[in-house]
């Protein structure tokens, strides 16, 4: 069941207001609509709470990481959807962000959004606002299904055609919550030639490889792509393989290690 957006927004405002009033957090990261535009905002008092909004989605996990690094004391609140929480968990595996210093306000997504995102888990581990809706298998997507029926040459031709549109804006890399290396090889000339557009296929393959075991399926990369290249279709298939072979999903537990970084003894192949 989907509750009306206004109800969810009001409930969220009340939770944020309580957290701020009781001094449980220094501030809460969420979205604010001002001047008819909506963007990320740090709520630190009840004054601007009437401007709190829940849509559209922004990379709040990345913002949390930045703020936490300069927050010496106290906790930070953040409104998280399933993928935001998973992104934070993946970040915690890679960096020194401490999950204990975050107060998560869990927001469940609507059925419609879950279908749009082809999301298996359209909810965070703890739901404060909204109700749980059923996940959608990424394999239900028509494009994914069509690709799975094709042979290697056909699939390669499809991706070559898609990636030929790339203008190398680096938007997919910049917006991705789990693409957070300080030294990125996509900026090194031995891998990616300066001034060449579209870049070689390896530009996309390097990124796909680097996030293969980390992608939380938030879709931010595709949303930021000016050329509408369906990158998540690609990543989805890799993720499905990880599930199938190792029973592994990124973003579920900070202590769970990726099968890519462990030995087969530590993470055995699943009996198929």
């Amino acid at each position, binding site marked *: 069941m989907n509750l009306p957006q206004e109800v969810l927004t009001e409930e969220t405002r009340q939770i944020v207001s309580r957290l701020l009033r009781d001094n449980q957090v*220094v*501030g809460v990261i969420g979205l604010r*609509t*001002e*001047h*008819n*535009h*909506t*963007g*990320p*905002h*740090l709520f630190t008092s009840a004054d601007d709470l009437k401007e709190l909004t829940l849509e*559209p*989605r*922004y*990379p709040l996990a990345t*913002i949390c990481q*930045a*703020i936490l690094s*300069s*927050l*010496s004391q106290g906790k930070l609140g953040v409104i998280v959807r399933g993928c935001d929480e998973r992104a934070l968990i993946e970040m915690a595996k890679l960096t020194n962000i401490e999950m204990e210093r975050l107060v998560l306000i869990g927001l469940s997504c609507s059925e419609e959004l879950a279908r749009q995102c082809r999301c298996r888990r359209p909810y965070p581990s703890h739901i404060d606002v909204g109700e749980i809706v059923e996940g959608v298998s990424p394999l239900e997507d028509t494009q994914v299904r069509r690709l799975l029926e094709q042979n290697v040459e056909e699939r390669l031709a499809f991706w070559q055609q898609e990636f030929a549109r790339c*203008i*190398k*804006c*680096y*938007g997919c890399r*910049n*917006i991705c919550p789990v693409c957070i290396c300080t030294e990125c090889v996509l900026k090194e000339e031995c891998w990616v030639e300066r001034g060449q557009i579209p870049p070689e296929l390896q530009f996309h393959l390097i990124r796909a490889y680097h996030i293969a075991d980390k992608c939380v399926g938030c879709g931010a990369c595709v*949303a*930021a*792509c*000016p050329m509408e290249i369906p990158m998540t279709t690609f990543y989805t298939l890799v993720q499905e393989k990880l599930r199938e072979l190792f029973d592994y999903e990124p973003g579920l537990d900070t202590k769970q290690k990726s099968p890519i970084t462990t030995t087969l003894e530590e993470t055995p192949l699943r009996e198929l």
Partner: protein
Amino acid sequence: MNYKTVLTVCPYCGCGCGMYLPVLDGQLGQPIPDKTHPLSEGRLCIKGWAASEHVVSPDRLTQPLVRTGDDLKQATWDEALDLVASRLMTLRDRHGPDSLAFLCSAKCTNEENYLLQKFARTTVGTNNVDHCARL
């Protein structure tokens, strides 16, 4: 800790894509594309994504430099502007107003561009006004 996001427009070309600039404890961060901007809808090109880099770049010029021979010497704004003004006037007087041309920019506001063409036409007396968007 102080964090805010400032809604603004990309300073590079005439498209005017929307972005939020995050400022954390006075430090400018990487732009966040504005998903609700009617034109850019959460997308930017590489220039927009890099729009905050030059602000904090150590190579950024923060003072006017005046060339004398092969050297560039630091100058005050008054010195630099006086020099530019007198050189413009010399060239105009010696070779006529049409020996000069003025390039406006998509990076400027309408008002700034208006002022530049006004200056070209009324102060200098030439219609040689063009725009970087035609390059």
